[in-house]
Structures are given as C-alpha cells and as structure tokens.
C-alpha cells in the first residue's frame, strides 16, 4: 500500500513539474518541432491504413443491421456519428499509445540507463525541459491533429464502401455526414483527443524518465507506458462520455 501511495505522489510531482516548467524559458522550439514530426508525420502511414480499413469494416458490418430495418440510407449518418464521437479519437489514441508512447518510454528509459540524462544535467541543461516538456507538448498538439486526419480517412473508407454498394455520390455522402454531427460532437472529440495526447506523452515520459535496472528497465518502461496509457485512455473515454451525455441532457 505504501508503494502505491509513493507512486501516486511521484506521478503527482512529475505532472506538477510539467506545469511549472512548461511556461519557463528556455523554450526548446526546435525540439518541439522535431517531436511533432516524430509523433505526427511519422504516424501517418499507420494511421492512414488503420483509419481507412476501420471505415470500410465498420460500414460493412453495420449494413446488414440497417438493411433489416430498410434504413441503409442512414449509413453515412451512422458512420459519421460513430467515427467522430468515439472511434477516431479512441483508435488514434490507442495506435499512438503503441507507437509513440512505447517509443518515448523506451527512448527516455535508454537515455536514463546510459546516463545521457545525467550528462544533460551536469552540462547545466534542464533535461526535464528538453526531454519531457517537448514530448508532452508534441503529443498534446499532434494527437488532435491525427484524430482529425483519422476521422477524414475513416470517413473516406466508409464512402468507398457506401459508393460501391449504394452508389451514393461524394457530395450526398458528406452532406449526410455533416448533417448528422453537431458542434458538441466536434468539440468533445477535440477535447478528448487533447486529453488523450497529454496522457500518452505524460505516461511515456514518466515511465521512461524514471526507469532503472539497465536494459531490463528500458523494456519494462516501454511496455508499461503502453499498458498504462491504454488503461487511462479507456477510463478517460468513459468519464468524458458521462460529461458529454450530461451536456446533451441524456
């Protein structure tokens, strides 16, 4: 029990330190841009493929149920609501946890055990500012951008499927898509992806920055970063859903 409380105190101190240092110069703009590239641009191939396939598969799986009710015309609206409200933020965050969160955990873990973080410290450079603040900012900024991209790609996947089966035009498809979603859907999806991005960056950095016990510790940091981030993302999804439903008056 003591260990759990020690760990919670350590996490609290780590997060508090982030908010203390994020506004303090020096601002490592070059490193932030480099990390944004790593998190955002380098995730594009995987996100594109996954998003597109999810769009196709979800559309295909939903069709029989709607066909039973004679409501296949509602497919674009259904896809739109499902993808914008839940699937795009969640899928993007889960993929980013695996690709980015583990990468950050492993990279910082390796820097810790090979004394690169100590080397920064003794050269009077704040390693927290250079390594943690930059990475957390990058994930917080790029995951929402990736989520928007995933939404678009998944909708395109859905369109490809719908256009082949229902012969729906692109204009009709996207008119129905935008009719089905509300401003609250877009805002909640964006806020959710900002929170997911922050969680992925913070968990990856925390696990890596505090890793120990040599190469075994690096592996554990990477693994633990993914598992913890995914777990927190599902919890956050559930909590945010309650808040959004309350706002909708459901």
């Amino acid at each position: 029990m003591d260990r759990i409380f020690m760990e919670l105190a350590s996490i609290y101190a780590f997060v508090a330190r982030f908010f203390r240092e994020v506004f303090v110069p020096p601002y490592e703009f070059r490193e932030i841009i480099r990390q944004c590239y790593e998190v955002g641009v380098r995730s594009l191939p995987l996100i594109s493929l996954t998003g597109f396939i999810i769009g196709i598969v979800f559309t295909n799986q939903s069709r029989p149920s709607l066909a039973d009710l004679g409501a296949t015309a509602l497919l674009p609206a259904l896809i739109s609501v499902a993808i914008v409200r839940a699937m795009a933020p969640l899928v993007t965050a889960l993929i980013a946890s695996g690709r980015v969160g583990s990468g950050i955990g492993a990279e910082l873990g390796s820097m810790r055990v090979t004394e690169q973080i100590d080397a920064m410290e003794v050269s009077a450079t704040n390693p927290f500012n250079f390594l943690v603040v930059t990475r957390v900012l990058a994930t917080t900024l790029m995951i929402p951008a990736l989520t928007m991209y995933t939404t678009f790609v998944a909708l395109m996947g859905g369109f490809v499927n719908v256009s082949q089966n229902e012969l729906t035009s692109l204009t009709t498809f996207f008119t129905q898509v935008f009719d089905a979603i509300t401003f609250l859907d877009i805002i909640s999806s964006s806020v959710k992806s900002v929170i997911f991005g922050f969680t992925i960056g913070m968990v990856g950095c925390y696990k890596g920055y505090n890793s120990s016990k040599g190469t075994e510790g690096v592996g554990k940091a990477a693994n633990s970063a993914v598992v913890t981030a995914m777990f927190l993302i599902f919890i956050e999804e559930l909590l945010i859903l309650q808040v959004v439903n309350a706002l909708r008056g459901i």
Partner: protein
Amino acid sequence: MKTLNPKIDKSSKVIAIEGLKKAFDDFEVLKGVDLELYQGENLVVLGRSGTGKSVLIKIIAGLLRPDEGMINVLGQEVDRLTPKELDRLRLKIGFSFQNSALYDSMTVYENLEFPLVRHMKELGKADRDRSIEEVLEAVGLSQSINQMPSELSGGQRKRIGIARTLILRPEIMLYDEPTAGLDPITSMDINNLINEVQRRFNTSSIIITHDLTCARAVGDRVVMLLDGQFQRQGTFDEVFATTDERVKAFYNYNFID
C-alpha cells in the same frame, strides 16, 4: 610514470571535501571521506568496483546528495546551492561518463553544439563551428564530425565525450572510469589525452579508475578508497609501498608493465 605537473598550485584548492558520508538504504558506501584537489592537479581515485568512487564524483557534480559532510567546489558548497547557482557551477565542471553518455539521436556535431547553443548564446554559427573544430582537433577526431555515436568505436566515443565536456572550457574535469572496456593501446591513447587536456586547457581533474596503468600514467597524486574511506594517498609508488594486504592484493591483481 607521469612526471609531476609543474603548474600544480598547492596554495589553491579547487575542491575540498570533509567528512563525506553517503548510504544507499542500509549500505554505507562512503564513511567519512576527506579530499582536496589542487589547481592544475590530476588526482586519481583508485578502488575496487562498488566502493563508491563514482558516487563520490556524482556528489561533487551535484547529481547525488550527500547524507553528511561538506563539499566545497571552487569556493561554493555544492549541496547548499540553489538550482540556478548549481547550474552556473556545473558550467565550470566537465564530467566524462564511463559509457561516454553521448546523445545517441544526435550526430557528433550536434552533441558538441548542444551545450554551446544553450550556454554560449552570444556565439554565432561560425564561432560555434570554430569551437567544435578546435575541440575535435584536440581529441584527434576531426574526421568524425558528421558521424552518429553508434558508428564510433569505444575509444572514439570516449574522446567525443571528453570533447563535449571541454567545449565549455571547464576548470575541473571529472573522469569516471576513462579506460574501462578499452584495449591497452586505446587506453594509453586516452591516458595521453587526459594529460594533454590537463596541459592544454589547464584543468584540475579527478580520475576515477581501477586501472593501475591509467593511474600511473595520469596521476600527479593517487588516493585509494577502501571500505568507504581513503586509506592511502601520495604518488603512485608511495601508495603501493605498504604492507597492507588489501592494497598489495589490488596491485598484484592488476597488470603493470
């Protein structure tokens, strides 16, 4: 055997440590260490693995906090400094890590540029490039400027690690096991480099090692850490002119040409 550096100024202490104690959980590593480093001196700290040699220099650099004792570096008590004051002091201390600790996502050039960009903001790119060329030339690796750390040999990594610490012109150099894991010829090159750094940059250095060849080649003075305390100190020959079985055993198990 190294000839004593004539520039050593015994009236000027750059590091003074008194009664330093440090424990990890129940294991007391340093049990009241006293140490002085003089201006221009190369001081070798000898001892077996796990005796707290690296802990000692990490405390000097402010990476670890002592449990007890006074650590005075360049006139400032390290464990009483604010983070900003500690950073200012650290700019005067170069730390060469056992495994070099090069930033492996950066090229050699970027590794050397990293401290310059942050601490010598007044320098333009041309001046930075000149400084980088100068330290690379000093460590004999000008040709490696665009290589990644993973493309370098162990000896080259050590040299680049030393170059990175030299680029801010430190007054004190701390070397953690500079010859560990290197073949005898590369070790000798590193020993020569440590002496060259002392001469060319007029640094005062603490060299942590268990390699007696290194100790003999670079040390103006040698101290031996046994059971958490310094048991012997003097020149290399003075330290090993003893009947203490522990010191003799340490000598006999090392290769001395």
